[in-house]
């Protein structure tokens, strides 16, 4: 039973659609943030799987690009989560609820 590139890609697709479903289905703003994190993780898994299977490199220059881009994605995701949570805390202070359905001040 050989585990190949496709196994990892299908798992990445599963994580991606789970993240998408979380974004669509949650009304809690922090739940939506968790969905975004899942999507980013799916992308990371894809990057690293391609790095291992499809980008061979040479002995002198081993294939590292996928890993490094994945490290940057993790760093950026952490930064984005920090700012998003700061925004959510402000939202909660103003509306005393974390439900995104309440964010309707600009509607109509």
């Amino acid at each position, binding site marked *: 039973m*050989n*585990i*190949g*590139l*496709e196994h990892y890609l299908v798992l990445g697709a599963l994580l991606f659609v789970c993240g998408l479903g979380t974004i669509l289905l949650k009304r809690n703003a922090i739940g939506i943030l968790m969905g975004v994190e899942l999507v980013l993780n799916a992308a990371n898994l894809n990057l690293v799987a391609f790095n291992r*299977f499809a980008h061979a490199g040479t002995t002198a220059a081993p294939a590292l690009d996928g890993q490094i881009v994945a490290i940057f994605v993790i760093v950026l995701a952490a930064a984005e989560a920090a700012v998003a949570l700061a925004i959510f805390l402000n939202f909660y202070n103003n509306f005393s609820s974390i439900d995104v359905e309440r964010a309707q001040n600009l509607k109509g």
Partner: protein
Amino acid sequence: MVALPTPTPFLLASAPSLVETLLFKGQPSLLVEFIYRAMICAVFFLGLVSLVAMFCIWWERKVAGHMQCRLGPNRVGPIGILQSLADGLKLLLKEDLIPGDADGFLFRMAPYLAFTPAFAAFLALPFSPEFTFEPRLAVGLFWILAILSVEVMGVILAGWASNNKWSIYGAMREACQIVSYEIPLGISIIVGVMSAGTLNLVDLGKMQGGGLQTWLLFRSPFALAAFFTYFIASLASNKRAPFDLPESESELVAGFHTEYSGLRFSFFFFAEYAAMFVVGGIQAALFLGSWNDPFGVVGYLFAHWQPAYDANPTAANAMPLLALNAVAAAIFILKAMAIIFVQMWLRWTLPRPRIDQVLYACVKVLLPLSCVLLLGAAVWGLLVPGRPGVPFVDYANPFTIAAWRDGPEGNATLSYVTQWLLTLLGLSGFTAVVGWVLYAAITGRNLKQRLTDPAPIAEAAEVASA
């Protein structure tokens, strides 16, 4: 579906370890090796963690007792050595209470989430070159740091799932404290790693095998300072000694484990002592010479017996090597226990600061200090280049001047001189501290230990009648 080509096997098997060769008479198949290692993990390491935790529980109470001029446990067993067993039995037999409004699933899961990272960190600890679970782990030190940072989740969930405001207070304070102190922790480790040049714990151990002066503690003055900042930050990340606010809540209310009783409570205790051992192990591995003794005897014997075994892998050559590995593992455990003793010593000596003082110490004192150390270590690496060779590993005869002068990366005289200077400094400091403590212990036995002087009877009668 496209047919998959045969991939390169990821588990590129190394030459089998000594024990595996003796057990399986040669190279075992990868599946057998896989199952064998899983068994080692489940049986041996779990047993080691339990043993360490039970010993530390008894030892802490003994140390606390003797530092407070009392005896500690002395009824159950010869010097109370079976006290941990009795405690464990008591905790097992308690009623398993779960608060009615608590989140049942999270409440049950939190102790395991707190214990598993501390246990998983044991996998990377370098007890000896043969008795390391995964010697090829290129990120050994970073892996321990990473897995220990998952432990905070267990504490937060324990506090949250108890549905008790005191638990939430304890959990939030602890999470704040641990997450803040992870930064100076990581930076101190980076300073040590910069001196060494590798994250692999087994390589770190081999690099320190030539005697006291090769220990990474004495590689540069910044590594020496980083050892102390790491020690302080690790106290906070273990919720020990002056930074035990989550447990101080336990003298007031009980913090995040208020609602836990019985076996679940004991898991938190095990997690704490296992984490203490891991942290002591990191300090021993990174700064204090890993499994080597201060005279370089272990390094000398390894350098002579390991190649002899590699050239001629017979059982006769393997036995002395195995014995040496056992001695090395004992030395490693001894060093980790020494660090644990210092942690216990501090706990019963220092008062406890407030949470804002704790965070002040982290963000305004330790963090700038460790950043300065990082900068200094980087500049030091540029100004004092080269690493002196390790005796018996890089050169055979440590008593020649040429050996001193030529490190593996070129001229290393300045580095070697620094090493010896720092070694003398460290040795004198250590001897001074030990001598001072012994002097106090010896001369202090004649002093009366009273908190207040008793008032003479006549004065007391006067005061009463006035």
